[in-house]
């Protein structure tokens, strides 16, 4: 994306934001709350339209794209929402199967098998018949991850993938995401406030604040940034510009 501006009711959320991501890359985006991270992900899947600038996803310009273009691009994108966005009128199994079922290219038996495997991978084996309302927040998050990854999209967007999960499950989830990526070669963009977990997972990190990128570079070098705001966020100290 290049020079993208997004505002809601006159309040700027993203300001002249430029960001590129290589295919097969693994970028983590950190930042304080309300810094525009979730809006950035929604922009990448066409749920938010830019006021200005250009957004290209997998070689297609979606910033001025028609609904048909968006729908085509979205078939190659998987997204985990911050609040899970599980369909509460479907069972867990139906939720996870949905991305495959709507494509209509996979037989029912194979879908059921892949759903079972995906749920086992996220530690929820045998939960197919449960309703989302029967699950805890952490379990919903894992179902969301299973749904986002089952169709093996080329681009995966994770909005706070481990919020609400315990440290052990958090590292398991990142291991799972990394293993999936190694298998499919997809591009991963993960947004989180969990500095430690995201540093360990991402090959590259960016820090967003007030709609702008304040840092972009190797994960291991973020603590040595010249920007006091970046250093404060990473160290978690009370004193500083934040």
């Amino acid at each position, binding site marked *: 994306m290049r020079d993208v501006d997004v505002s809601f009711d006159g309040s700027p959320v993203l300001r002249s934001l430029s960001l590129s991501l290589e295919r097969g890359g693994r970028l983590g985006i950190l930042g304080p709350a309300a810094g525009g991270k979730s809006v950035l992900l929604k922009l990448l899947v066409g749920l938010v339209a830019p006021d200005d600038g250009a957004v290209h996803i997998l070689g297609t310009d979606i910033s001025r794209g028609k609904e048909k273009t968006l729908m085509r691009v*979205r078939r190659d*994108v998987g997204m985990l929402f911050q609040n899970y966005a599980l369909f*509460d009128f479907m069972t867990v199994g139906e939720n996870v199967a949905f991305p495959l079922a709507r494509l209509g290219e996979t037989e029912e038996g194979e879908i059921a098998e892949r759903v079972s495997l995906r749920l086992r991978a996220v530690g929820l084996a045998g939960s197919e018949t449960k309703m989302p309302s029967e699950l805890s927040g952490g379990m919903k998050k894992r179902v969301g991850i299973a749904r986002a990854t089952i169709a093996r999209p080329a681009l995966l967007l994770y909005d706070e993938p481990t919020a609400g999960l315990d440290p052990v499950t958090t590292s398991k989830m990142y291991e799972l995401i990394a293993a999936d990526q190694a298998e499919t070669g997809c591009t991963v963009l993960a947004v989180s406030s969990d500095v430690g977990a995201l540093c360990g997972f991402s090959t590259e990190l960016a820090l967003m604040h007030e709609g702008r990128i304040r840092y972009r570079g190797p994960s291991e070098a973020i603590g040595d940034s010249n920007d006091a705001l970046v250093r404060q966020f990473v160290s978690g100290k009370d004193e500083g510009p934040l």
Partner: protein
Amino acid sequence: MLGDRTISAAGRGTLFAWRELGGMTILAGQVLRALLPPRMDAPELLRNMYRMGNRSLPIIALTAFFVGGIMVIQAGVLVKQLNAAGLVGWGAGYAIFREVGPMLIALMFSGRVGSNNTAELATMTVTEQLDGLRALAIDPIPYLVVPRVVAMTVCLLCLTVLGNLIALYGGAFFAMVLLDLEFSTLYYSLVDNIHWLDFVHGAVKAAVFGASIAMTSCYFGISVRGGAVGVGKAVNAAVVAAAISIVMLDFLLTAVLP
């Protein structure tokens, strides 16, 4: 100044009404586009028809039965004064088919199904489920809205036809019990005087009311803003808008239809 404030409030109200009306018109256009040729999720349509139609049947039947009774009790005074027992069946049938049946059943349907539909769609909107569908390359209009519009229109039409018949039976029952009238008197009074257009008149109204309830409830559901408070406001707005639209459409259709 009070005058300025009044004018300002009236202006805000007018702008609000036009904005909502415009939003509903756009949604109606999107629904029509999805229906030509029909593009909707069949399992979702059946699921909605079951819970909107089948599950509304008991409450509609109960209401209709007593509505028939009310019609007869109201007519009873005149029947005795004018000794016009031969008109009771026709009077009750005429009123039920053309006016009371479609309107009361639509209001009941709006309260039960329309409000539920708004709450469900509004909750889905605020919990990002609609965005979740879009992100999975599913357009929520053909997938969620169109099946509901079709289901509500068809279900209200069927429930009204059924409700009208139950109201007639209710009327006959109360006429026999309270007015000592023979069933045959009521029956021949109805079939000899009622015209098939009276039935069609009510059926057309029912279908239009169903579409209107569906559009208002879906619109307020998917355009909600905010969390739980927003959902409550959306349900309230949908019920009020549906009631107003039913009455206004009833007036219009009564004037236009034969």
